[in-house]
């Protein structure tokens, strides 16, 4: 498969997944606000903080309010990680590989893009109910894309590159969602473990579509450690970090033909080490290190995997 094509399928999936996760971020905060006791300050800065783009935001918008954060994250065409920009990039990538992906995939990403641009242009994303509906649609469209891709594209090399893109993006964003809680301030120390605290953890689970699955897992009560364990280490939940890393590794080895547990390329080594670490970690280990510190470290290791994927498969420097 052409390196350029593999790269585009990888980014097509990353961008669709990214758009979905941005929708999740904003959606959960909106829901949280609806549940918050009146008079409590709205906290929008943490949402921007988790994107890693707070400086960009501050420079352009100043103080974080509901309106400008939503504007920034959803329809700001100049901010490369807004939902609108993600879809534009996803569509451009799809357009450059239309002959490789199925036409159903193209149609889905195309109508997804049209839906988002239409919403951006119509200016209807002002009232709460249309915003909530919009985020719902974004999430569904992303699911639909993944489903269409699963069902209509041969599970060949290109498909596996797409999987790696989607799964790495998802693992990264689950880590960031979990990190949001670190930045959301409770009114006072005595609120730890309070209804408000629990509400926030529930909101967090919901933003990862993990609430119901978490409840079903046996231990029904909501505690910070259990939530973190579920989102980081759960083997079978499709948005947990460990699940994503495991599946990404599988796809990687399908591409290279190397047996899992062995490696030939730097990317196999980096991803393999990350997966093994997650296999043997306990949530106690993580909390001992500090959840925020652990997530920080995890993100930089996943960035490393992304970088090595690029170097191994996509880099197009001239052949001597």
């Amino acid at each position, binding site marked *: 498969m*052409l390196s*350029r094509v593999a790269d585009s399928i990888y980014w097509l999936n990353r961008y669709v997944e990214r758009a979905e996760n941005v929708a999740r971020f904003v959606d959960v905060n909106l829901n949280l606000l609806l549940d918050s006791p009146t008079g409590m300050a709205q906290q929008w800065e943490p949402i921007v903080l988790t994107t890693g783009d707070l400086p960009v935001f501050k420079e352009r918008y100043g103080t974080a309010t509901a309106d400008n954060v939503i504007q920034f994250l959803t329809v700001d065409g100049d901010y490369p990680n807004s939902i609108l920009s993600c879809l534009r990039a996803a569509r451009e990538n799809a357009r450059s590989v239309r*002959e490789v992906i199925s*036409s159903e995939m193209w149609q889905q990403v*195309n*109508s997804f893009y049209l839906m988002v641009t239409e919403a951006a242009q119509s200016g209807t994303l002002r009232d709460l109910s249309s915003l909530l509906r919009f985020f719902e649609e974004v999430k569904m469209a992303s699911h639909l894309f993944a489903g269409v891709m699963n069902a209509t594209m041969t599970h060949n090399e290109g498909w596996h590159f797409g999987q790696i893109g989607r799964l790495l993006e998802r693992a990264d964003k689950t880590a960031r969602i979990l990190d949001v809680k670190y930045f959301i301030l409770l009114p006072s120390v005595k609120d730890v473990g309070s209804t408000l605290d629990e509400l926030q953890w529930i909101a967090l689970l919901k933003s990862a579509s993990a609430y119901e699955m978490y409840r079903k897992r046996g231990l029904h009560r909501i505690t910070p450690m259990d939530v973190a364990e579920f989102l980081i280490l759960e083997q079978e939940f499709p948005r947990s970090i460990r699940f994503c890393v495991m599946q990404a590794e599988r796809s990687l080895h399908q591409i290279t033909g190397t047996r899992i547990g062995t490696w030939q390329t730097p990317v196999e080594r980096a991803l393999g080490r990350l997966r093994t670490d997650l296999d043997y970690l306990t949530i106690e280990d993580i909390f001992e290190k500090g959840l925020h510190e652990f997530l920080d470290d995890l993100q930089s290791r996943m960035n490393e995997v992304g970088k090595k994927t690029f170097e191994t498969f996509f880099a197009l420097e001239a052949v001597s």
Partner: protein
Amino acid sequence: MQFNDYEPGDFYDELFVARGQPRPEAVPLIDRINSLSVEEVQRRQQAAQIALFKMGVTFNVYSDGQGTERIFPFDIIPRIVSAQEWETLEQGLKQRIYALNLFIGDVYGEQKILRDSVIPAELIFSATGFLKPCIGLEPPGGIWCHITGTDLVRDRDGRWYVLEDNLRCPSGVSYVLENRRVMKSTFPLVFNTMAIQPVEDYSSHLLETLLNLAPEHLSDPTVVVLTPGIYNSAYFEHSFLAQQMGVELVEGRDLVVQDGYLQMRTTKGLQRVDVVYRRIDDDFIDPLAFRADSLLGVPGLMDVYRSGRVAIANALGTGVADDKVIYSYVPQMIRYYLNEEPILSNVPTYLCWEPQQQKHVLANLDSLVVKAANESGGYGMLVGPHATQQQREEFAERIKATPRNYIAQPTLCLSRVPTLFENHFEGCHVDLRPYILYGKQIYINPGGLTRVALRKGSLVVNSSQGGGSKDTWVVCK
């Protein structure tokens, strides 16, 4: 929705002999439309447009900034060509491609036609499409023009004329295929009652034509489509054809010449390429051989091509026959190489290069269309009857300065096809571009792209100038 009010006027109408009197081959279609309500016809028109938009059947326009995608306007009233008429067209086009192919081989080979003074040698050597590096080339099977889209028009009397031959990278065939797909869901019943020749196997024929160029000993040759990239106006088509044939769509940056072969960069290293269907003009294909500033092509490709280790369709150098001055000699070529009379006529053409003819052109600028010899897409032309005095004077100066670059033709009165305008039909002028493949045999896709001038009274059908398209139905015998 009734055709009762439709006025064919003083034109050749493709669907009507006279007011209220459809051509025999169009009767089932006209009956069907007459049985539908206005709203129903409008609904179908709208559904067809939406379907094309959803499928992303678009072309790019450079002029408005960053290359916006536009949908190619589509009208659901098809043009219909009778079986008999098509047979004549087919024979005429085959004859023309044979002769053109022999001509191109000749000018890069023995140059007999020049020695025999059938065509003045200086016209060939001054043609921008004539590429010196191609002299002495021997493409596989002696075929140069594998894929051709020839533009035809019909005059007021119903006679067909060849307007131009597009031998470099003719585009538009993807619209033929997608339009047909949409038309089948627009008028399924009509398709059931009328026997319309299918166009869908074009991609298979194209793949066969390309495979035919690979060396015989290769059991599984690698074919690619070479595109300038997503900002090219015909990008949709490049990707569509690659997809339909199941071959890689590559850009220049995916390719490299190494170990004497053309290779593409894959996730598993370099892989040899055997046949290239290029959608890049000659000048841009190899910066070492042609334009040094081009980033679209592949350095060193010409050497690989010359050594016969890669095949290219169309062959490099075919653009010499796209020159509108050379075009005017095609009837002579047919007589010279085939010893036959041309079945299809050229549009009468005046060469400004010849003093007598130039004089005539300058004296009649208000009734002629003047075209630059090497422009396409409706650029660089003067439509005399619609031009201002100042424009005509400017063109006269240009003609006198570089007479080799200009030809002039009488303004033809293009035939018309009824076209939906809100709640009634209007006759709009059309041309026709059938697609011809030259592989083991010559195959002509039955139909082709009918382009329609959607502005009232306009004669310009180019997509870049506000034209649209219609499906073309060739009925079976």
